[in-house]
């Protein structure tokens, strides 16, 4: 499954917020067809790492490479990274339909001064079909549930045919059942589109059930191969000494076994 050339590569990334070291010498490679779960506590640097990959903030040290080329040299035009933010804090005051929302993911490709054409509409409908939300096409996105919104915004992230998808705590704000279904859908998209996916979470259950590889981030990054064998020691290194592993997050359902 793993190919030679990573889609995203982080080389020795460090980031300071004031005097505080948020990220310390992070090295990471994301390959096509890999679902990488990024686990860590709140404030551990997960979202900061995604923002660096997306080019929203610059690291104090190190380099981000996209398809082997430094991010700064690539520019927005050729970067094919879809992104699902943690908070769905779009503007709910304007009446935008699901189709219009998904279509926005193609605006950069369409270019300035041009209107979406047949090809763009087809791409949007294809992304909508992939996320199984055809029945929502003409609904107003501001009136959807958390799980439905999550799918719509994922369709928007996928509509420009990205090579990689970054998801920041996709389980936030949706129930466990919805989150589990969504993660299975992500695994399906990974296989069908050969996507490299990074999904950030602080839910150890979600990560261990669905990720191909797991990385724990709390300022520094440590990798764990699947099948996941996170020891109590690994867990406490990431979340702190006061943490104890207690129970599964889905007490009423039988899920695939794992070692945590």
């Amino acid at each position, binding site marked *: 499954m793993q190919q030679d050339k990573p889609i995203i590569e982080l080389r020795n990334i460090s980031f300071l917020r004031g005097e505080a070291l948020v990220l310390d010498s992070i090295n990471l490679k994301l390959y096509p067809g890999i679902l990488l779960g990024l686990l860590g506590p709140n404030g551990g640097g997960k979202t900061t790492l995604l923002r660096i990959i*997306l*080019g*929203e903030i610059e690291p104090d040290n190190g380099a981000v490479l996209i398809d082997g080329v430094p991010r700064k040299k690539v*520019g*927005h*035009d050729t*970067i094919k990274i879809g*992104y699902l*933010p943690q908070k769905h*804090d*779009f*503007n709910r*005051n*304007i*009446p*935008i*339909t699901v189709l*219009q*929302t998904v279509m*926005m*993911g193609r*605006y*950069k490709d*369409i270019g*300035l*001064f041009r*209107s*979406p054409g047949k090809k763009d509409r087809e791409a949007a409908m294809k992304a909508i079909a992939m996320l199984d939300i055809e029945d929502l096409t003409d609904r*107003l996105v501001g009136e959807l549930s958390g799980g439905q919104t999550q799918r719509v915004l994922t369709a*928007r992230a996928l509509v*420009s045919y990205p090579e990689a998808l970054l998801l920041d705590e996709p389980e936030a704000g949706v129930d466990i059942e919805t989150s589990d279904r969504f993660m299975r859908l992500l695994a399906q998209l990974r296989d069908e589109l050969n996507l490299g996916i990074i999904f950030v979470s602080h839910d150890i259950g979600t990560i261990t059930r669905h990720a191909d590889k797991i990385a724990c981030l709390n300022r520094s990054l440590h990798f764990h191969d699947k099948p996941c064998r996170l020891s109590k020691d690994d867990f406490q290194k990431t979340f702190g000494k006061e943490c104890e592993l207690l129970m599964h997050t889905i007490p009423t359902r039988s899920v695939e076994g794992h070692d945590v």
Partner: protein
Amino acid sequence: MSEILSYSFFQRALFAGLLAGGLCGLLSVYIISKQMAFIGQGISHAAFGGVSLGLLLSIDPLIPAAFFAVIMALGVAWLSSSGRTNRDTIIGILMASSMALGVVFLSLAKGYKGSVISYLFGNILAVTNKDLIWLTAVSLISVIFVLLFRKELTFFLFDERIARISGIPINLIQIGLLICIAFAVIASVHMVGIILVTAFLVIPGAIGQTLGRRLYVLFVISLLSGILSVIIGLFVSYLLNIPSGATIVLVLTFFFGMARIANSLFSK
């Protein structure tokens, strides 16, 4: 009633009003959706500094007013881009400074200063042919900008962060929009005056937002509200012999009240 239409001053007023009403109605959707009502107030009050400078220098006050309004718009975009100071704080500072400059300029100006009242409260009879040409030009520029960047503007309204991440030139879009708002303020000054122009930039969009269930409907309602308020306001102000600018704003407020009532009746 029909005789009024034969007066050239009223024809000019109506034409200017339709342009200003349409332009403000169009931009009002962006102002309301982006919750930028304060920027309209900031830019219009900044224009007061320009009007006073024009009176001091004995030149057409609309020229320095336009300059002040555009500087205000660019200043807000530039100073708020770093994120260190809240946009509303910057607007408040620049607005107060410009007003203060206006007071200083007025105190230095010699001779008759009464015409400043027509800029503060609007005087439709003061619209000249030169104003109409200027108004037509800025309206065209604004409409062309909105049409050319309509999809980027929609993305900017809906999800600014993701639009920026995906490579949409958000700074350019924001500056362009603020300059268009500055143009609309200057275009409306003769209609409703500096003090009431905020209402002209806010209420049409608020009406559209109350009734519109689709984005294009929101634009149509906002545009029509702006235009109709001018037509009705002008006739009512003529018939009752009351100030035109204030009447237009009151008509808009009446429309908004009706929209809210209709919304609460039909949404049940």
